[in-house]
């Protein structure tokens, strides 16, 4: 059981980062369909950085920059050039897939890029609590950072002037303009930060979990993060909870197979997507998108 929950947390971590970034972007009024591409750029940059410099910290910095660069691209096309959010996000995902595959071949050739994955970082004292210790306090460093990120984003959104302005930009940008702030700049910054944070999520995948980069390794996780932030109603803790549900669904996949339950693995793999559709459909009319989302200024 502890193994199962630990696996759920492990699988949820990259999703949480992407969802946090997505909340920033969507609260500011830009659909975050590009999360997948931002994560992929982050995952690629992290491994390349850690490989070239031999340091995980450099990898993480590059992940933030790589994801942020993708965020900047999306921000320019959607906010400045007023293009359709959805199609731009989709394009960003494809561009990231092509770019990382191409650069991996060009930079690494046929060399296998392996880096040491970030190990668990038990918190002294707390890690020795039975049950909770191994589960919550013996996680790798980025998992703690994800929890801290939830707290930080909650504080930013609901307790600061900037957060108020950001939320208002997604609801009624004209009012923000009248109040003396620049909604365009807020959106640009929010989308760039979204990319940077989602890039960290990609780094969790490549640097913390497997220690290498493979083509298209995000495999739809950006879209699951997008679904979880909607299910979590654009609230950091809510989104994190939804990510845990998806993590649990995927963790269950391995359990079911090892218990020999006669359910095709393909059906089990469909579960996260079916759950996402079912939950979104269940929320249905009660979901309240930020009012001005997807509307160009």
């Amino acid at each position: 059981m502890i193994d199962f929950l630990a696996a759920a947390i492990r699988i949820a971590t990259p999703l949480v980062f992407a969802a946090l970034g997505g909340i920033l972007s969507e609260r500011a009024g830009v659909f975050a369909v590009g999360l997948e591409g931002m994560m992929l750029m982050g995952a690629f940059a992290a491994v390349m950085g850690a490989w070239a410099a031999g340091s995980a910290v450099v990898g993480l910095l590059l992940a933030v920059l790589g994801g942020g660069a993708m965020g900047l691209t999306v921000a320019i096309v959607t906010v400045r050039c007023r293009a359709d959010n959805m199609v731009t996000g989709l394009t960003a995902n494809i561009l990231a897939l092509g770019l990382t595959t191409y650069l991996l071949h060009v930079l690494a050739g046929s060399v296998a890029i392996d880096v040491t994955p970030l190990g668990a970082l038990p918190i002294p004292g707390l890690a020795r609590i039975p049950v909770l210790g191994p589960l919550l306090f013996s996680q790798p460093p980025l998992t703690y950072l994800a929890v801290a990120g939830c707290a930080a984003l909650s504080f930013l959104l609901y307790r600061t002037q900037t957060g108020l302005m950001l939320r208002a930009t997604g609801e009624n940008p004209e009012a923000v303009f009248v109040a003396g702030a620049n909604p365009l700049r807020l959106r640009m910054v929010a989308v760039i930060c979204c990319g940077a944070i989602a890039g960290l999520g990609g780094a969790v995948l490549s640097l913390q979990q497997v220690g290498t980069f493979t083509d298209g390794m995000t495999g739809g996780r950006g879209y699951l993060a997008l679904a979880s932030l909607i299910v979590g109603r654009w609230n950091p803790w809510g989104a994190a909870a939804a990510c845990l549900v998806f993590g649990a669904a995927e963790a269950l996949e391995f359990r079911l197979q090892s218990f020999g339950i006669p359910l095709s693995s393909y059906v089990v793999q469909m579960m996260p997507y079916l759950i996402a559709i079912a939950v979104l459909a269940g929320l249905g009319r009660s979901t309240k998108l930020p009012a001005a989302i997807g509307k160009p200024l």
Partner: protein
Amino acid sequence: MSDSAVSPRASRYGLRLRTDGIFLRILAAIGLSMVCAALLVAVAGHNPLTAFQAMVMGALGSPYQIGVVLNRTSPYLLAGAGVALCFRAGVINIGADGQIALGGIGATATVLAWPGPPTAITAIAALIGAALCGALWSGIATAINLGRRVNEVLVTLLLNFVALLLVQLLLSGPLGQRGAGFLQSPPMPRAVWLWRVPGFYFHSGILIGVIAAITLSVLLWKTPFGFAVRVTGRSRPAAAYAGFSVAGVTWGVMLTAGALAGLGGGVEVLGLHHRLIEGFSTGFGFKAVTVALLGALEPAAVIPAALFVGLLETGALAMQRQIGVPSALVVVIEGITMLFILTATVRRA
């Protein structure tokens, strides 16, 4: 600033094009992305001119290569024309991956379940089955979208993943070939293969695609339904005022697009692979969106747009074989072209 006096839906929906000088804008976008591509080739340590020459020769160098290009173009054309129609109505359907996958399933299941010896009738039935399955998949998305107010982009996207897994599930079960080592169906009997143009490598899928695109163009510009589609895409309140049913238009464009994409899947199975294979439709959804926007959301103009993407991809594979520039470059070119086209032409209301 958006116009808050109008109903919010008027500005939330409706992908619009700036139509003044649109073909020049699209050409400029293609040109700029080629410059970016040349830079990337240079990064890889190759001469961009040699690379592009290899691309052109690889795509147009022989009748065989031209046939390869036309085969590659067929599913993009079929799916892209449908996506263009959806976008015209302000419905963003990015589910062509899944709809094409379902089309492949429909065609394969029809052939495998066909009683008696397979004939040309079987092939026609299989294509109809493909179109019906594709329409079924887009219909599910539409039902969830309209019934439960889930954004159509999210539903079609999530259903893509489900459809790809469904292909794998069926190939590991009733549609699969036992002991093949790969997830694939048994080979199709020769009688159901699509007719091939004598002397050339290409099959009749491209002809079906051209007919479909021209039919859609007529549908869009010469029929009451097409008018309703265009009005709905421009302004939903105006469409409602004129008495058009937004839900009806959404159903119409989604089912049409799903059926065409499904047909594209059937054409791939019956014309090209001669069997259903795992992951055969991955990435087609994005190509469909690319060609729809390259073709300025005009179904007839999707024909040259799909040809362009087909040329690019066939050429890129040849380039990889001949001089070793990774063919993933073409995905980058497509992505950059799309971003330039979006910045240059698309503007929301």
